C-alpha cells in the first residue's frame, strides 16, 4: 500500500504519485470526448473505492453483520462523475441532491468517509444518516443538501422542483439533481417532475439523471416501456435531453458537465439518461451475486488507462489494495459501536414547537398522562 506521509497531500497529488507513469499522455480520449489524464485517474480512484465499498457491503449482508444490501455496482462512472461536479454545501446557493439508493459513489467522491456508509449498513446508533433506522444507501446530510433518500421509488422526483424553485429565487448557480433508475420512470412522479420543471415562464434548474440499468428487480425495461429513449420523454415539455453511455467515464464526465452547465446557467431543466450495468442484481433480496455477463465499467476503465499508458497493472493493484483496506478498516471500526436503544424509538419525530401544547420538544408517545 502506498501510504502518504505528507499530511498536506491532496487527492489529486495522491493519484499522481500513486498512478501516473512518467510517459503518461496528457488526456484520455473516447471518441470526440476527452478528459485530462489527471482527472481520469481521480475518477478511476473514486470508482475503485466505490467498488471496494460495495463489495465489502455485500459481504456484510451475507455474513449477517447487516440485514440487507442495495447499491450501485455498475453505476460507478455516473456516480463518481456526478459527485465530483456537485457544488457542495448547505442551502439554496448550492446543489440539492434528490438521490435514489444506488449513489454511494456520489457521496464518496464528494468526501463522505466510507465509515458513514458502513454505519448505516450495520444499523448502529452512530449512523449519521438515519440513527440505524434506514436501509444502506439511504443517506441524509443537511450540510450537503442531500435530502433523505427513501425506498419509495420516484418520490424524490416531485421534491426536486420545490428545492429548484427556491434556488431560482435565490439566484446563483445552485441546481437540483434528481436521480432515478429506469423502472421508476413508470411512476407518475417522473412525469410530474418534468411538468413542474418546465411550466412556461417558471422553468426550474432541475437536472433529471436517469441511471438506466435495464431492469426493475427482475423485469426488463424493454418488456414494459415502448419509449425508445427515456430522456426523449422530455421533448413534449421542451426539455433538452441526451442519452449517453454511462459505462464510459470519459463520455459520462463530459455529458454531465454539459448538462450541468446548461441547467446552472440557463436555469432550465435537462434530462440526462445514462445506460449503465447492474453487476450484482437488484439487491441482497435477489442474492447480490455477481453478473459476469454485463460490462464492468471499473475493469473497462482500468484496461483503457493501462492501454493508453496512464498507469500500469502494478499501480492499479496497489490502489485496489488500498481501497479494500479502507473498506475493511471501516467495517472493523463499526463492529463494536453502540446500537440504538429502546429510548431512541421516538427520538427525532418532531422538531421543537412553541405552539404545541402536547409535544413542545419531541414526540414522547401517545398524548396525555396515561392513567
Amino acid at each position: 500500500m502506498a501510504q502518504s506521509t505528507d499530511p498536506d497531500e491532496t487527492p489529486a497529488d495522491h493519484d499522481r504519485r500513486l498512478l501516473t507513469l512518467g510517459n503518461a499522455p496528457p488526456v484520455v480520449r473516447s471518441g470526440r470526448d476527452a478528459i485530462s489524464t489527471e482527472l481520469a485517474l481521480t475518477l478511476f480512484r473514486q470508482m475503485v473505492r466505490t467498488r471496494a465499498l460495495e463489495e465489502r457491503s455485500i459481504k456484510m449482508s451475507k455474513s449477517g453483520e447487516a440485514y440487507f444490501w442495495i447499491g450501485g455496482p455498475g453505476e460507478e462512472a455516473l456516480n463518481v462523475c456526478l459527485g465530483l461536479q456537485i457544488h457542495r454545501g448547505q442551502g439554496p446557493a448550492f446543489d440539492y441532491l434528490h438521490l435514489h439508493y444506488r449513489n454511494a459513489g456520489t457521496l464518496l467522491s464528494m468526501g463522505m468517509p466510507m465509515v458513514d456508509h458502513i454505519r448505516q449498513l450495520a444499523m448502529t446508533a452512530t449512523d449519521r444518516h438515519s440513527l440505524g433506522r434506514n436501509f444502506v444507501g439511504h443517506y441524509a446530510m443537511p450540510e450537503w443538501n442531500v435530502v433523505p433518500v427513501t425506498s419509495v421509488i420516484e418520490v424524490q422526483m416531485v421534491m426536486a422542483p420545490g428545492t429548484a424553485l427556491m434556488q431560482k429565487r435565490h439566484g446563483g448557480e445552485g441546481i437540483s439533481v434528481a436521480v432515478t433508475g429506469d423502472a421508476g420512470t413508470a411512476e407518475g412522479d417522473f412525469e410530474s417532475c418534468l411538468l413542474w420543471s418546465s411550466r412556461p415562464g417558471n422553468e426550474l434548474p432541475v437536472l433529471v439523471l436517469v441511471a438506466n440499468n435495464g431492469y426493475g428487480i427482475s423485469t426488463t425495461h424493454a418488456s414494459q416501456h415502448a419509449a425508445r429513449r427515456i430522456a426523449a420523454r422530455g421533448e413534449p415539455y421542451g426539455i433538452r435531453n441526451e442519452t449517453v453511455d454511462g459505462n464510459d467515464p470519459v463520455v459520462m464526465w463530459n455529458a454531465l458537465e454539459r448538462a450541468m452547465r446548461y441547467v446552472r446557467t440557463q436555469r432550465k431543466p435537462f434530462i440526462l439518461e445514462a445506460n449503465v450495468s447492474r453487476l450484482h442484481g437488484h439487491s441482497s433480496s435477489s442474492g447480490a451475486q455477481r453478473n459476469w455477463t454485463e460490462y464492468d465499467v471499473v475493469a473497462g476503465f482500468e484496461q483503457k488507462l493501462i492501454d493508453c499508458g496512464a498507469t500500469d497493472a502494478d499501480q492499479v493493484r496497489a490502489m485496489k489494495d488500498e481501497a479494500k483496506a479502507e473498506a475493511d478498516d471501516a467495517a472493523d471500526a463499526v463492529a463494536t459501536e453502540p446500537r440504538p436503544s429502546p429510548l431512541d424509538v421516538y427520538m427525532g419525530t418532531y422538531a421543537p414547537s412553541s405552539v404545541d401544547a402536547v409535544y413542545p420538544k419531541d414526540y414522547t408517545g401517545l398524548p396525555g398522562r396515561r392513567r
Partner: protein
Amino acid sequence: MATLVQAVRLALHYGETHLGVTDVFGEDVGPPLGGVFTATQGLKTAWNTPLDERGILGTAMGIAYAGGRPVCEIQFCDYAFNSIDLMKVAGNQRWCSGGQFPLPMVVMTPNGAGIRGSIYHSHSFESWASRLAGWKVVMPSNPLDAYGLMLSAIADPNPVLVLLPKALMRVKGDKPLPGEPADADELARRIDAPIGDRTQWQPDWPEVSEYFVPIGRGDLVREGDSATVVTWGRLVPVCVRAADDLSRELGFTFDVIDLRSIFPYDWDLIAHSVEKTGRVLIANEDTEVTNFGEHLLRRVVDEHFYDLLVKPRTLMGKHVPGIGINQTYEENSVPQYTDVVAAMRDLAADAA
C-alpha cells in the same frame, strides 16, 4: 364576524406578512380565482399549480427543505388519496434522518360532507390522517379557531394538516378575530374579490394580529354533568345545539369537547371529563370502520373502564363507499342532528 374561510384567508395574510410564509399554492389557489372556497384570494404569495396533488405535496417538501415556508392546498381532501404516500414520507423525513430534516409545511384541505358534494366532495380524511405519524392534524369548527390553528400550523416547524369542514366554510363565528372590522359587510368589501373582472382588484387587509390556538389543546365549549361528548369539525355545532336543546327540554347537561386537534389530541381534557361524568359519546362524520374515534374509545376503555357508569359509545358515518348526491344518502349515512340528539339523550338517560 368573519366566516371560517375569511378567517383562513386572514390567517394566511398574517402568515405571509409576519410569519415568513413564502408560498401559498395549489390548484386554482392563485389569481384569478383565489381558491374554490375563496380561501386564498388576494394573497401576495399565492400561485396556481398543475392539477397534480403529488406534485403539490412534493414541491411543498422541496420548498421546506430549501428554507421556505409553504402552505399548499389539496382542493378537496377527496383528492388527497393519490398523494397519501407522499404525506407518509413527509411525516417520516425527520425521524428517518435521525432528527436532521425538519419539514415546516402546511397542507390545508376541505373536509367532510354537508355541501351536497356527491361522492367525491364529501369524504372525511381525519381518520386516514391520524395514521400519518410525524404529522400534526388540526380541524377547526369556527372562524376564530380556524385563524388561531392556521397561525399555529404555520409557526409549527413540522408538517401540519389543516382540515377545514366544507359545510362550515361560510359560517360566521360568534367571537371576532383580533383586529377584524366590527362590520361584516365592511370586511367582505375589503377582502372578498369582486365577482367578474378582478384583474385590477387589490384587497384592503385589516390589521389583524397574532393569535395562536395551541396545537393539541381542545376546547370545552359546553360544560355539564350528565355526560361527555367528544367531537370535532362539522359536528361541533350540531352537538352544541343538541346539548342546549337537551338541557332546556330534559335538564341533561353535557361537557361538549371540541377536540380541535386530531393529533396530538387533548387527552387530559377528555380524561378529566370522563372521570367526572362516567358517560362518553364520541361523535364524528367519518366512516365507522377504523375511525379515529375508535382509538379514543379504546383509550377510554383502557384507562377509564372503572370510571364508566354506562357503556361508552360512538356515533359515526356508515361504512359505505361514498355519500350519494341525493340527500337520502347523506341523511342516512352521516350523523344528523336527530341522530346526535338521540345518542346524547340515550347516553345521559341510560340507567347506571
